[in-house]
């Protein structure tokens, strides 16, 4: 196929010997290449636009009260989103506690048994998990943890944990593969056991990459509303109980966004600003951590 393509090109070249044809080919070349420039910068416009809008429309609704008080009816000024901030922190924190150990341990296993059948099955399961629609994760956790017991912060955390596992696992696995074999063999050769080699030598060498994965996973789930809709449900009161429904920033934002009141809409923009700033900081610091290690992560 490729040789055929090259042959066509050379045939064309023979045919198009006249200078005008040469000129046409050169023109097509510059136009095509110019278009890729334009398309690339056109694709960046939405990013700038979203961030610009979130700042200009969200900032006016931010105040000390926005961060320090909980839900109030519109007649009392609408209140703030402290309950949602606390809820999000709790949901994401517990999700991290559940997902990070599982993901790192499984990544250790996969990195050492990449090409065994079991290793391939795990890698495939990871791919499937990372491609799962978030709403399906919500349905799944609902059937296990909510039906019968009711909506709860714990169910929400589990849903977020399921979304974090594949991200942390994949990055950790990649980072473990980058640790030079000689380091591992040196430690084993000196008589260290396998687990000591892993904990004292290999993991420390990969730690910045693993933290990158964790930061990216936290960034990803901090903005998730769909799975929480079916698990944590959302709430208007400040609560930290694991067995009760709990508020979260993306949930509150969604509720305020579809509210008819313009004040609620404005608060939704302000919440969007909080989420976007948080997510962008996490993403950029994750990149900064691994900039010198892997290109294009």
């Amino acid at each position, binding site marked *: 196929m*490729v040789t055929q393509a*090259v042959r066509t*090109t*050379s045939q064309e*070249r023979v045919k198009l010997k006249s200078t005008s044809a040469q000129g046409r080919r050169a023109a097509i*070349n510059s136009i095509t*290449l110019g278009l*890729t*420039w334009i*398309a*690339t910068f*056109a*694709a*960046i416009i*939405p*990013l700038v636009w*979203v961030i610009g809008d*979130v700042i200009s*429309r969200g900032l006016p609704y931010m105040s000390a009260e926005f961060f320090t008080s909980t839900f109030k009816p519109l007649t009392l000024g609408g209140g703030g989103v402290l309950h949602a901030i606390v809820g999000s922190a709790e949901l994401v924190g517990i999700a991290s506690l559940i997902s990070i*150990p*599982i993901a790192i*341990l*499984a990544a*250790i296993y996969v990195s050492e048994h990449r090409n065994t059948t*079991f290793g391939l099955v*795990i890698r495939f*399961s990871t*791919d*499937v998990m990372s491609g*799962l*629609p*978030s*709403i*399906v994760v*919500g*349905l*799944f956790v*609902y*059937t296990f943890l909510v039906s019968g017991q009711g909506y709860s912060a714990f169910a929400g955390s589990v849903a977020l944990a*399921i979304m974090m*596992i594949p991200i942390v696992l994949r990055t950790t696995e990649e980072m473990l593969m980058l640790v030079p074999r000689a380091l591992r063999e040196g430690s084993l050769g000196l008589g260290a*056991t*396998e*687990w000591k080699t892993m904990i004292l030598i290999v993991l420390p060498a990969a730690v910045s990459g693993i933290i990158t994965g964790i930061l990216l996973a936290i960034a*990803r789930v*901090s*903005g998730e*509303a*769909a799975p929480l*809709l079916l698990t944590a449900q959302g709430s208007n009161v400040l609560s930290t109980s694991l067995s009760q429904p709990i508020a979260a920033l*993306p949930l509150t934002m*969604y509720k305020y*966004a579809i509210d008819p009141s313009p004040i609620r809409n404005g608060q*939704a923009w302000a919440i*969007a600003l909080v989420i*976007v700033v948080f*997510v*962008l900081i996490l993403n950029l610091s994750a990149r900064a951590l691994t900039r010198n290690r892997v*290109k*294009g992560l």
Partner: protein
Amino acid sequence: MTSIPASVVRSPSARLGRALAHGDVPYRLITVAASIVLILLVVSFGLMLWITSAPTRTQFGLQSLISSDWNPSGEIFGSLPFVVGTLLTSLVGLAIALPFSLSIAIFLVELCPPRLRGPVGTMVELLAAIPSVVYGLWGLFAFIPAVVKPLGDFLLKLLGTPTNFIYLPFLSGPFFGTSIFASGVILAIMVVPSITAITRDVLLAVPAAQREASFALGATHSETISKVILPYGMSGILGAIILGLGRALGETMAVTMTVGNVSELPTSLLNPGYTMSSVIANEWGEARSLLHSSALLEIGLMLFATSLLLNVLARLLVWSVSRKNPDQRG
């Protein structure tokens, strides 16, 4: 003390004891256990959705897939409008995203000045970092009024009016702003980064010799790209597209907020519609009857099965390119 018989050390129980003391056996067991948790999760996903959606399957069978009558209060559940809505929004999104993603990937691999490569790549990837629900808010209050509404009105007047010389029924009204078209455009923005990232990796895997041979034969850069590099990576690019499709199919919040949520079979891209994920998000909280929630679970099962299938297909395609050339460029 000096006379520990060698046979004792070699006996299985003693060896086990020693391994336990070293900690290697528990270490392996723990890592295996964590891996098994993962596999169990994926298997139970499928099983759970299959079991819980049984009431609808036994009651309606295939009827629920081909009927477009969705009436929760009347206990009738035909999910065709959602399947069609999901397919249309995703295909519109993909059709818009594809030329951009290909151009960006080509730009990053072939043309970008090295100094710009990092920042441009990062900015494209940050498009994927913005949460779905933020895209929904932005779409609803900023993008639809500013771009989609005027553009849709223009298309409607130009091509979607029956009295016109050229009449395209799939661009006819009624058009309110929130529509399949609007969701498609926002989905396009959201899937550009994922298609771009994989396409870029695929293009990087094209051997330098292919490129150099084409240049040596006198081909221009654009000819080299369209006739040598893209054909070489075609199956991988196809994989990237399929993965992007999978992402678009399951996207929930941004679509729920911009698609209009009308559970009728759409006849035009400018009509409001409904998607599979949106109907789950919107109706789950109100689903009182067993049949209603089981119908929603069946839709979830379809989403799960589709994303599983697309994932397998995409991985196989991408894998077939990277296997051709194990030592990658860049």
